[in-house]
Structure formats: structure tokens, C-alpha cells
């Protein structure tokens, strides 16, 4: 396959990592959603590239699913949610942004080192992608830890899913179709349920601040 494709995939990988960092540091929820959509875009683009480069047709389907789900559907749902729930800001993060950045960088280094021995075995076109995927996962994990409102947590959760998909498509040429379909279904349903939840939480505590969700504990 052509080195051009490799460069392309690497580019998208880099974009995803960048976006992950951006989400980590982004406070405004609306912007967060946009970033999420962009990440989905990069993901589907890379999937298409891989599909085109290796001629694996089922990857086109998975790209299509990804696009519709993560670029169109979920961002739209999220938009409506925050408009209905009127949450704009996620003011205070639990750790301040620069520290989070530093931690994030450490994570990236860690995950690259982790992925390095494995990527030798990869027949795949882009060796580094696995590390990047792992980094994305861990970064969104970090984001979930540090956000104090429900919606950003959800977005973190979703972007973690992105990282996983990226690993699936770029490191291995996509999972079996049936599995991907199942995963997509789960994500969709999960999203819907989350939406319902957010409303219920809101009507219970009339806020989406998860500090209200700290009653159940060992005292």
C-alpha cells in the first residue's frame, strides 16, 4: 500500500490525539461537543483511508456507522440535551488545566512505551496508531475523572469509545462486522439511556452537578 496512505492515517491519528488533549482542556460544553464531533470525523476519515488502502470493504460500513453515529447523531442528541437542560459551562475542573496537561503528556509517553513492543507485530500500515489509540483512551479516562458535571463525563465516556474504535480500525483492520454492529448498537442505546438519566437527575437535583451524587457512602 502507498506510503501516502500511511502518512494520511498517521495524520488522522495525530489529529485524534490533539483533539483528545483539546477536550481535556476545554471548559465550554458546547465546544466540547464540537470537539467530540471532530474526533468522530477524524476517526471515520482514518477508517475510510484504511479501508481504501487495504481494500477491506466492511470497513466502509463501519466508517459509515461511525460517521452517522458519532458525527451526526450523538452530537445532535447532546446539543438538544444541553439546550433542554441549559447547561453551558463546566466551571471548575477538579484539577487545574496545566497539571492535567502534564499528567496527560506522561500518559501519552506511558502508552507509547506500552504499545511499542506490540506494534512490532502489527502487520498494519501505521505502527504508532495503537499507542495513540491507547493514549486517547487513557486521556478520556483522565477527563472523566476530572470533570465535575455529568455531561462532560458522558462526553469523556464517548470519546473513550472513539479511541477504542480507532484501535480497532487502525491496528487491526476492524473487528468482525457482527461485533461492530453490536458495539454500535450498545453505544446508541447507552447514549439514549444516558439522556433519559440526565433528565431524571436534573429533575431530582435540579442541576447536573455530580457533587449531588455523593450521598451513598461508608460513613
Amino acid at each position, binding site marked *: 500500500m502507498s506510503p501516502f496512505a500511511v502518512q494520511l492515517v498517521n495524520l488522522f491519528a495525530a489529529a485524534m490525539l490533539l483533539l483528545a488533549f483539546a477536550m481535556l482542556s476545554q471548559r465550554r460544553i458546547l465546544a466540547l461537543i464540537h470537539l467530540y464531533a471532530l474526533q468522530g470525523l477524524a476517526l471515520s476519515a482514518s477508517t475510510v483511508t484504511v479501508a481504501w488502502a487495504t481494500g477491506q470493504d466492511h470497513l466502509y460500513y463501519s466508517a459509515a456507522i461511525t460517521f452517522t453515529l458519532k458525527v451526526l447523531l450523538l452530537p445532535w442528541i447532546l446539543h438538544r440535551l444541553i439546550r433542554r437542560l441549559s447547561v453551558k459551562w463546566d466551571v471548575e475542573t477538579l484539577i487545574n488545566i496545566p497539571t492535567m496537561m502534564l499528567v496527560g503528556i506522561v500518559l501519552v509517553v506511558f502508552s507509547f512505551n506500552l504499545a511499542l513492543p506490540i506494534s512490532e507485530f502489527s502487520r498494519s500500515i501505521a505502527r504508532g496508531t495503537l499507542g495513540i489509540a491507547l493514549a486517547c*483512551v487513557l486521556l478520556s479516562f483522565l477527563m472523566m475523572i476530572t470533570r465535575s458535571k455529568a455531561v462532560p463525563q458522558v462526553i469523556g465516556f464517548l470519546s*473513550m469509545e472513539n479511541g477504542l474504535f480507532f484501535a480497532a480500525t487502525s491496528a487491526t483492520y476492524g473487528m468482525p462486522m457482527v461485533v461492530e454492529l453490536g*458495539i454500535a448498537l450498545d453505544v446508541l*442505546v447507552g447514549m439514549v439511556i444516558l439522556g433519559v438519566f440526565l433528565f431524571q437527575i436534573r429533575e431530582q437535583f435540579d442541576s447536573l452537578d455530580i457533587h449531588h451524587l455523593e450521598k451513598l457512602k461508608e460513613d
Partner: protein
Amino acid sequence: MDPLAILLAVPLAGGFSLWALGERDSAPEINAAFSFATFMAAAWLTEDVISTGPITAFHEQFFVDPLNVFLVALTAFVAFTTALFSRPYMRTEREHGRMTPARLRLYHSMYQLFTFTMLLALTTNNMGILWVAMEAATLTTVLLVSVYRTAASLEAAWKYFILCGVGIAQALFGTILLYFAAERVLGPQGDALLWTHLDVVKHQLEPAIMSLSFVFLLVGYGTKVGLVPLHNWLPDAHAEGPTPISAVLSGLLLNVALYSVIRCKVLAEGALDSRFAGNMMMGFGLVSTLAAAFFLSRQRDIKRMFAYSSIEHMGLMTFAFGMGGPIANFAGLLHMTVHSLVKSAIFFAVGHAAQKAGTQVMEDIRGLLRVSPRVGWGLMIGTLAILGMPPFGVFASEFLILTTAMREHAWATPLLLLALGVAFAAILRRVQPMVFGETTLRRLPYQPALAPVFIHLGLGLMLGLYIPPYLAAWYQQAAKLLG
């Protein structure tokens, strides 16, 4: 007509039809009927396996082997008895105004779907589908946990969702890595995730990848097993959901999660030919057992307490499977079975007790023997059984686990002794005054369903004194298969 198909189809259909039927008075009975049909199908399937041996179906996408056949039967059975139990229970809840018809509708359909997802997870041969099923199980149960719509139940459900969602995501990464390792051996077709195939070639899988993959899988599915320190969702979800759900969570879902962990462990062990995976599980198991024991000693909410006891027992099983070897694995499987029987029985009794007292706070539940002896004895005997008092099956497995540990990992036995002792003291100290003494309780509008309690306890008793040959044979084959 294939029993496997029926087994999976019935609960799926049940879920949708119960939703479609909407808010009816007869919904509980219909629910029970569907569960019964599922149980029948499971029985048929079991009978098939007994006569013909392990089977695979649908282009090997599904398979039933000694390891999962009894889990399938167990799951269907407990799901059925729980449906029986939930009939009067849920009606009473409605009387007490905690359930509305709409919620009951949701409850019943989700109950069936939940059964379906568990059966799917158990019978699928595809590690990917396994993941999908586990995630689906999480989703359905989240709705069930939050069904009361109270602040506490919402919080519990939210934590459950987030923690398990994240955990399951790790498991997905593990699955991807597994596929990544597998396709280099089996080629990039759909069957590269089929467990049977993987099991054949497990020795050729790349160790470096497999070790990472197992870590992700363990953390992922381990979250659902409730291993400390990934357990935090478990007590909340058990305490705040409706009691039938606590019963199936403890009795079934944890089992299924552990089942997926040990499936992965088999592969990892094969690839790594080191005790890495085993040791990791032993570590988790030990930590969980100990921590849970000490958690137990400070509980005030009865369901929360038994949730921690589930963590303790899951830890014990994880420890057993971690040790490996025919005896330990045998013990682990036996413990799985008996624990889910006894623990669900306990939750049934607890449910009625809590309804009588109108609270789950143990200080306010007193003297069950006086107001309704059968509930009292059910709770007492169940507790003693779960605490490892012979002649119940829990003791049998603990006997094997401890003695095996004593000879292979003597260093661990003092910790186990400590944990078991503390747990015993903690639980008995709480349960005794609830059962004995003068009472504070009232009668219930509906006659509680106690048949399930005593059926379960009876089976638990039987497994302590006599294990049917088929079951024993399965256990032994499964133990061999787990290595």
C-alpha cells in the same frame, strides 16, 4: 427445533411483548410464564448436552460446553424463581406506592431482556459478542436499578452506569488486543474471535499482546465481578435497586462476569505459559475477600451488607480460579453455583423482611421469628449457609479452597482465616437480633412467596451432601478445561 434458539428467543420475545402488552395486572404472571418457558428450554438444552455432549450452533457462533451448560441452567432457574418471588414483592411495592404501573411495565420487560443478555453472554462463542452482551446486561440493569426514581436509586444507577461503562470499555480494548493477537494466527476472518478456535491455538498467541489484553479484560470484566477496588458501584446498586434485581445481580450477573474473566484467563494462561494471570486473579481475590470482610463489619443497611458479602464470595472464587488446578477450579465452580442459589434465597428473605419492617436499616428489623417464622428461618438458615456452615454447599467449596490453599499457598491462609472470621462475626452479629427477639414488624398485603427461598436452600443443602453425577462430571471436565 433447536433448544438453544428457543432459550435465547423466549426471553427476547418476552421482553418486547411485555413492553407491548403495557400496564396490565397480569404482567407479573406473564413475566413468570416467560421465565418458566426459558427455564424449560434451558432444561431441554441441558438434557441435550447430557445425551449428546458439548454442542456448537449457528456457524459456531454459539456453543455449550461443560463450563457454561450448568451456568445456563442455573441462570434460567434462578431467573425463574426470582420471577416467582417478584410477583408478590412487586405488588406489595405498588401497594406501598413505590412502584407505578408504568415502572412495573419497564421493570418486567427489562427483566426479560436482562435474562436474555445473560444467556447470550453465557452461550456465545464469540468474545466480541460476549462483550456486547455484557454491555447490554449493564444497560438493562441500570434501568432496573433506577426504577424507583428516588435520589438514592438515581445516584446508584449513575455510578453503576459510569463505572461499569468505563470498565466494560477497558474490556473492549482488551478484546481488540485479543483480536489483534488472534488474527495473526487465525487470519482476519470473523472466526478469529471464536473462543473454541482461540482455545485451540492459544499457545501460539503472542505473549506480549496477550498479557496486555488480559490486564484490560481483567480490569474490565473484573469491574462487573466487583473486585476491590473496582467494586464501588456494587453495594450501591444492590442496596438501592428493587430486591429481585439485587438477587439476580448477586446471583447471576456477577457469575456471568466471572465466567467471562475465566474464559479470558484460559487463553491468557495458554499464551503466557506463566502464572501471571493466575497470580493476578489470586491477588484480586485475596484483596477483595479481606476488604469486603472489613466492610461488612460496619454496615447498617441489610441489602448493602449482603452485597458486600457477595463481593467477599466473588473474591473467594476469583482466588480459587487463580490458584487453578482440578480441585481449586472444581471448588470455584461449586462455589459459583451454591453462592448464587443461597445468596438469591437470602435476598428473597431479606426483601420480605425489609417490606415488613418498611426499612432496610437493620436496627429497625427485629424478631422476624415472632411475626413470620418462615421468613425468619429462611433468613437465618440462609445466612448460616452463606457463612460457610455445613452441611450447605458453600462449606464444601470453602473446605476445598482452604485446604488446597493450605498446601499450595500457605501464606494466604492466615489472611483467609482472618477474612472469614471477621465476616462471620460481622454478619451473624447483625442477623441474629433481626431473626430472634421481640418484634417490631407488621403484616403484608400479599402472602410472601417463600417457596423459592426454601427450594434454593434445599438445593444448597443437597450440593453440600450429594452432588449429582452429571453435575460432578461437568465440574470435573470444566475444571480440566480451565487447567
